[in-house]
């Protein structure tokens, strides 16, 4: 009896405290809103937004609803995050491996990169790229082409645009290729387990993934045109490149800063992972006659990935959350479009901030759940 009281009393007190705090806030919010004559509700989402967004992946202008503006912001956030994740992984893996290099110069260069970029605030780095580095680029009319067909100018990065015809058929062909590769892999594994024969799986896979889409091109089902950027005069002194695709400088600065900053953390995860595989494992693998390539593929990587992936996903999550700093350089992401402009116009603080936070929360929780599931799946089964 005594024990039960001892466990119930603190719980009750905590619950009471939490309820009291939430209650206090709700009552005040109610009173405040009554006073200002606002009513709580999400009806405003279907109203006309009447503001424009500079950069949008979907068709949008002021005549669309606030809900659409929210979608524009969300898509822009996702775009930055995906680009950032791709680049930070590439840089991070290279730097992480470079930190383990036997070469003294490479090892230390990588170490200096990590030490410097992760000790400078991300916001400062974003400002640096946007206001200092990218502003030093030439005007469109004086720009020399980069890689022949792209133009890196102060007004943004102009790249060729692909104009596809029947793009969906290409997607289907790639899907078909992937499915057949999965079948062939399974067949090869079975063959090896039953008869000990090995198929050149990698060669076949590469062949299939090249041949299937190639067929659609050769038969003329899918056509591709490339629109190169062309210099165009807007007024006497103002030039841009038309026709091609233009990447705004805000997006460039943001992706650069986010990927260079997060790459330092990814690099540390990669380094820890590779170092975490014990030397005995490699020696044991070598002593049963595996080749160095097989050791890397079958022994080291599976174990290293188990250490690398969970913290790296955490870094990806951080990158996604950090992409909200876009608001500081006016890249129209979720925070700027929705929690900035839309909030200013409607004045609905509680609704809009709660939607914004819930969006990020959903993204994070979804990724963490996925992670936990993955972690459980790959965990070493021990007694």
């Amino acid at each position, binding site marked *: 009896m005594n024990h039960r009281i001892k466990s119930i009393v603190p719980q009750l007190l905590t619950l009471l405290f939490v309820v009291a705090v939430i209650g206090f806030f709700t009552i005040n919010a109610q009173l405040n809103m009554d006073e200002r004559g606002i009513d709580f509700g999400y009806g405003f989402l279907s109203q006309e937004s009447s503001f424009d967004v500079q950069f949008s992946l979907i068709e949008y202008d002021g005549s669309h609803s606030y809900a659409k503006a929210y979608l524009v912001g969300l898509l822009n956030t996702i775009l930055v995050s995906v680009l950032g994740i791709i680049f930070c992984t590439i840089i991070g893996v290279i730097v992480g491996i470079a930190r383990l290099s036997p070469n003294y110069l490479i090892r230390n260069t990588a170490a200096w990169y990590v030490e410097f970029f992760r*000790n400078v605030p991300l916001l400062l780095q974003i400002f640096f790229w946007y206001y*200092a580095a990218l502003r030093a680029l030439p005007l469109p009319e004086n720009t020399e082409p980069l890689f022949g067909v792209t133009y890196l100018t102060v007004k943004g990065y102009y790249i060729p645009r692909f104009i596809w015809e029947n793009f969906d058929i290409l997607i289907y062909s790639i899907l078909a290729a992937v499915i057949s590769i999965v079948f062939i892999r399974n067949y090869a594994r079975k063959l090896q387990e039953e008869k000990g024969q090995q198929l050149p799986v990698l060669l076949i896979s590469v062949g299939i993934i090249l041949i299937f889409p190639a067929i659609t091109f050769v038969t003329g089902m899918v056509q591709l045109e490339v629109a190169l950027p062309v210099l165009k005069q807007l007024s006497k002194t103002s030039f841009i490149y038309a026709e091609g695709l233009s990447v705004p400088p805000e997006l460039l600065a943001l992706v650069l800063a986010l990927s260079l900053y997060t790459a330092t953390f990814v690099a540390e995860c990669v380094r820890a992972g590779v170092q975490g595989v014990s030397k005995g494992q490699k020696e044991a693998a070598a002593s049963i006659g595996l080749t160095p390539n097989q050791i890397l593929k079958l022994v080291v990587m599976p174990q290293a990935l188990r250490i690398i992936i969970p913290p790296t996903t955490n870094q990806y999550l951080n990158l996604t959350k950090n992409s909200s700093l876009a608001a500081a350089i006016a890249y129209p992401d979720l925070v700027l479009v929705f929690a900035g402009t839309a909030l200013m116009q409607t004045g609905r603080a509680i609704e809009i901030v709660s939607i914004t936070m819930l969006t990020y929360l959903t993204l994070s929780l979804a990724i963490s759940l996925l992670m936990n599931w993955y972690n459980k799946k790959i965990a070493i089964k021990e007694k």
Partner: protein
Amino acid sequence: MININILKPTSANFQTYLYIGSGLILISIFDVFLRSFFNLNFSTSLPGILNFFLPLIIGLIGFQMIRLEYSGNRIVDKINQSVNNNTFNAGLTLVIIFLTLLVIPPALNWMIFEATISGDTKEACATTEGACWTYIKVWFRRFMYGMYPNDFHWRINTAFIALIGFAFVGYFMRGKLKNYITFYYAIFYPIIAFIIINFLISGGSFGLEWVETNAWGGLSLTFIVSFFGLIFCFPLGMILALGRRSELPVIRYISIGYIEFWRGVPLITVLFMSSVMFPMFLPSDAFVDKLIRVIAAIILFEAAYVAEVIRGGLQALPRGQYDAAKSLGMSYWKMQIFVILPQALKLVIPGIANTFLALVKDTPLIFVVGLSEVVGMLQMAKTNPKWLGYAMEGYIFASILFWAICYAMSKYSQYLELKYKTDR
């Protein structure tokens, strides 16, 4: 495959190979050096791409010629082991040396040799191509103290010196006083700090003029925000970590909900909330200063991260520690305070340090609510019509400043980790 055995030294003819090889390496480095420092290029007669890669090719041949497993010469062996163990590594070595040679002269020129620091106006910088450190010199006080009135800067300085002084009091607590050291740092010190900052920096009494928080700024604001963030988010995080490991379901689920919520949202939206949403949640006549709201938001936010780090330490402790403490008849709090937490906290020093570093690096985000610390002041100075066009100098200055603070903090945490490492 081209047979390059001719380039492979043997121990018999190594002397000759060594002379020729190192000669070639030196020539390649010297070539890049001339190109970079004096803009001289001797191989312009060659076709463009060959001209461009010539130093690399010569250097690679040179490295190839001195690569021998055991040469007897200690320096050569060292070079072979560390930077020249295969062709790929030798190539990377050369690329890094060349890049350094190509980048350093313009950077040094810009930063030091052609830079200006004299004068008090923009005109002093008009004549040179280099950096304009005059800009930093003129704005230095603003970067340090924000818009705080110039005459009162001594108040900020005194407050910080006093805070550091009180932080060192713990070192002099000997004998009986030593039992109260935790109490001092956990409860007494935050109160003293608040009083000092409230009366000295904010002012309004004792004949000191009141300075509103809008005028605070610069590096001193960074310190104030991170200081209060650090001392309050730690105890809160500790309680949350214990809550998450508690056996009482209500407490556990509330802690989990709290931690997962704050970890799932970006700090910028939390600051937005503190500035636009939070006033709605208070009685209409209540007023909480912007700075306090921001600091509170940062504390609530970072506490969730601290909690997760400490939980890692708690989980890493073997069960035996809990069992042993319980079998001695310790109560829950006695067990946590005297047995579990001291060991767990020791384990998570690196993690805690990383969280604190993140906190310091996050302080620039308070620009969202209109407070400007160093980075905010930079943005303000950059748009000042008298000083347009010196953004780069400002960012470099601030990067070095933050880098130094964060680097010192991480080194200090490594020192602490070693100091408290008790096991073997």
